[in-house]
């Protein structure tokens, strides 16, 4: 049965204002908690004096590291992130105490009275300072500020450069970016009669939240039940920090035996939460006279800030994708993450690829100009094709490699060829300069060799014919529950009305990893399909007799269950009742394991990802000669995502990803003079508004992917990873000037 293509199970709740986000969840008798920061960037010998705060009206308790029964620090890879600081402050975002009071106002007033003293240290704020061999070692583990080094050794580039027609050696820089989900972090924890603490939080990963909480309280995982509720955006940014917000409320709820709520202000959210890694990239690329890339050498440095978070995984993706969408025989790359006293960096949509794409896709245009080749020609010559080997040595033969098809579609739709000829290149009659630019990318789907990749789903038939489904994938507002419902409705041939998604909790389904890396669709729906197939097999076995056919001949369509002939059919109501009469539970459990991937850490070689998404984005823009202001005129984006299960949702993800990429290219930047973030709210941290964006057209290319049971691969991250270099290329074609760092700001004097 075909289904409504823009269906969302949460649309009504959200459009009517009824969807409950964490701060909308209330329990009688809850205490309010607020964090206390210390105005240090780096310091030791932390001392906290709570006496005045405790005397403040309504204040109930002040919690510090001394109250923590478990581990004060935790993390996804290294357990180094302080949920509460014990002795050493490593960044301006560190939390030193928690103040509880009857009302939020009272908690805020008391928090202002907490006195913090410490011995300041000289903050190390640049990668260069931190890499100095004599620099103080910032991390609590290991013995160096270089906390990650990934190497890729593919062929040997060194001897190749001499024979190249053109060798480009260029430096690029990308900035610190805030995810800027519209809903700041919030959590409420509630002690339950049986000793379990229930947690409702604005976080993107209930299982990660549970791990942080259990470690912090020193209790088993099963003592906490983390529920899925509406989340106001995450974009990768609601893992570690958001999990800590939950863990802190759980600690307070345990110690005070009452519900405890903590809701962040925007300022706290930006001060404390992890950001996108700023990168410094040095590339040396050799081209033949025809434009073939002969050799690449790259050294890439990422500022990981004070704590590790997922820096090893982010930089791993940068390593695996360091040559963009191109096949290159000789590549040596070294990617480092360096600890500094900046607020830490971690996961954000795009995850290590927007930075490398910003460099590579500009280098391609630079080489095209210098060699006198068309930008499309040089891309076509070098891009990965069916049967190509990637720079990690992976043979691309298990799915359709459609990069050229995608690029052609975008080029055609926007009219790139003709418009490319019309670019101003620094000269124009009027007040504006015109330019068009594009970029291409391929992106490994799901976690790849970064992590464990599997997901489970449960289908639970009810005796009246209705059906409950749940999976280990967490809804972050992107609509993953709805996608899974659509997939299930189609597989069972039932009306969507028959299906309900069961609100997830960490206590009723196995840990299925986080909703990151564009894996929600591919993993979640594949596991739903596996469960659905088992479910159908079970039903067929028990209903075949009544349908007068063999189990393998039972069919599921048109909201009924059918035998071989149309004379025999059962409604779902009849079928479910029949199963219950046979004392059989109509219940199925499905697990999807991602296909195998492999990785050799010393050479950076292997089958990095089990499949790839192919993308091209193009943009037209205008530069005002007097002000230098850039106005985007039009964006066209094409992505081969395998299959669109919900078109409106896929397009929505494209538009949103592009908007975030535009923000990165033109306006966003976390400023942190002396390690203290000064861009703490939307007046200083500017994200794109309606008037900053042009009309965006999305082209969905669908080459069903055999590696995913539904054929779909997901769109969340590819959408964001390549508009910035496309804009940089368009700015060059308009102005004749190259911008090697972001955000791109044009000084009108530079245009003369």
């Amino acid at each position, binding site marked *: 049965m075909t289904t409504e293509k823009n269906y969302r199970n949460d649309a009504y709740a959200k459009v009517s204002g009824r969807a409950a986000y964490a701060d909308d969840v209330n329990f009688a008798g809850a205490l309010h908690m607020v964090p206390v920061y210390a105005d240090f960037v780096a310091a030791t010998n932390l001392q906290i004096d709570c006496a005045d705060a405790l005397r403040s009206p309504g204040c109930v308790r002040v919690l510090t590291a001394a109250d923590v029964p478990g581990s004060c620090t935790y993390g996804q890879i290294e357990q180094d992130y302080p949920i509460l600081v014990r002795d050493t402050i490593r960044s301006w975002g560190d939390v030193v105490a928690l103040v509880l009071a009857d009302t939020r106002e009272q908690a805020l007033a008391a928090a202002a009275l907490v006195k913090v003293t410490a011995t300041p240290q000289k903050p190390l704020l640049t990668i260069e300072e931190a890499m100095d061999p004599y620099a103080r070692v910032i991390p609590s583990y290991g013995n160096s500020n270089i906390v990650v080094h990934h190497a890729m050794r593919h062929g040997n580039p060194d001897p190749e450069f001499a024979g190249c027609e053109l060798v480009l050696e260029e430096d690029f820089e990308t900035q610190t970016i805030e995810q800027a*989900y519209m809903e700041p972090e919030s959590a409420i924890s509630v002690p339950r009669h049986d000793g379990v603490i229930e947690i409702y939080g604005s976080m993107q990963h209930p299982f990660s939240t549970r791990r942080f909480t259990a470690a912090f309280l020193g209790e088993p995982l099963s003592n906490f039940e983390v529920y899925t509720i509406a989340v106001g955006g995450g974009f990768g940014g609601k893992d570690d920090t958001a999990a800590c917000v939950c863990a802190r409320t759980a600690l307070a709820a345990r110690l005070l035996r009452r519900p405890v709520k903590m809701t962040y202000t925007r300022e706290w959210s930006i001060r404390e939460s992890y950001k996108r890694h700023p990168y410094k990239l040095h590339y040396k690329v050799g081209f033949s006279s025809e434009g073939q890339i002969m050799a690449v050498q790259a050294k890439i440095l990422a500022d990981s800030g004070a704590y590790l978070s997922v820096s090893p995984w982010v930089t791993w993706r940068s390593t695996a994708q360091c040559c963009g969408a191109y096949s290159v025989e000789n590549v040596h790359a070294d990617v480092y993450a360096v600890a500094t006293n900046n607020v830490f960096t971690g996961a954000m949509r795009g995850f290590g690829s927007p930075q490398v794409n910003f460099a590579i896709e500009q280098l391609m245009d630079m080489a095209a100009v210098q060699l006198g080749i068309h930008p499309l020609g040089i891309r076509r010559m070098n891009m990965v094709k069916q049967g190509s080997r990637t720079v990690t040595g992976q043979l691309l033969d298990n799915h359709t490699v459609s990069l050229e098809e995608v690029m052609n579609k975008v080029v055609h739709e926007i009219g790139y060829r003709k418009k490319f000829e019309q670019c101003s290149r620094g000269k124009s009659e009027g007040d504006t300069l015109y330019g068009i630019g594009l970029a291409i990318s391929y992106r490994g789907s799901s976690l790849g060799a970064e992590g464990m990749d599997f997901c489970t789903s449960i289908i639970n038939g009810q005796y009246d014919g209705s059906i409950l489904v749940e999976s280990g994938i967490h809804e972050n507002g992107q609509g993953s529950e709805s996608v899974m419902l659509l997939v299930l409705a189609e597989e069972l041939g039932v009306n969507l009305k028959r299906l309900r998604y069961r609100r997830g909790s960490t206590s009723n389904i196995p840990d299925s990893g986080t909703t990151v890396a564009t894996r929600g669709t591919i993993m979640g729906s594949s596991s739903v399909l596996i469960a659905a197939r088992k479910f159908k097999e079970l039903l067929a076995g028990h209903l075949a007799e009544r349908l007068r056919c063999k189990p393998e001949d039972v069919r599921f369509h048109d909201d009924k269950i059918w035998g071989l002939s149309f004379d025999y059919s059962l409604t779902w109501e009849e079928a479910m009742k029949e199963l219950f009469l046979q004392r059989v539970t109509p219940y199925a459990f499905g697990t999807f394991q991602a296909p195998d991937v492999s990785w050799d850490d010393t050479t950076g070689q292997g089958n990095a990802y089990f499949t790839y998404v192919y993308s091209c984005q193009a943009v037209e823009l205008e530069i005002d000669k007097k002000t230098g202001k850039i106005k985007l005129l039009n964006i066209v984006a094409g992505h081969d995502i395998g299959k669109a299960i919900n078109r409106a949702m896929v397009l*929505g993800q494209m538009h949103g990803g592009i908007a975030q990429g535009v923000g990165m290219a033109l306006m966003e930047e976390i400023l942190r003079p002396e390690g203290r973030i000064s861009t703490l709210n939307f007046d200083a941290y500017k994200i794109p508004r309606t008037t900053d964006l042009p009309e965006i057209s999305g082209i969905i290319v669908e080459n069903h992917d055999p590696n995913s049971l539904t054929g779909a691969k997901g769109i969340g991250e590819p959408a964001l990873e390549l508009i910035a270099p496309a804009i940089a290329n368009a700015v060059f074609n308009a102005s004749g000037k190259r911008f090697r760092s972001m955000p791109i700001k044009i000084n009108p004097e530079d245009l003369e």
Partner: protein
Amino acid sequence: MNKLQLNGREIEVQDSDLSMTLLRFLRERHFLYGVKNGCEQGLCGSCTIVVDGKAMRSCKFPVQKAVGKSLITIEGMEYPDGRVHPIQQAFMDAGAIQCGFCTPGMVLAAYVLLLENPQPTREQIRKALRGNLCRCTGYQHIIDAVELAAKIMHDQGLPVQAGCLQGQSA
């Protein structure tokens, strides 16, 4: 006694609440959780409500100044029988909802625009929604939704008025 109209009903305001912001007043005293707090500094538009037909940021609006005025929140947009307003329907039909945190403010900003200008151009829609940030959608489907709502209300001759007000006059 201080009074104001809230979603079509007259309510009384305690003197002690007069210094609160409308954001806190509506959430904490009237449990209208559709009024969202994204920045509390008048910068994001998540807390947008309608005060005497104008879009206002409730996080910067003292209750004192609202006395005697008529307020509409997202909860007042639907009809008394629970049907959603055509603008809300259009948001659903155009796929304009992702995380939904900006949605109440967006719907109300669109409502105020359509009250003043029932058939705006896309450019006019962009200008009217400039103060409302959305991090999920890139605004494309939101603009589509407002365009669609305008068309449907025009084609079917539906009144723009918020559902709670229509219920009253009916």
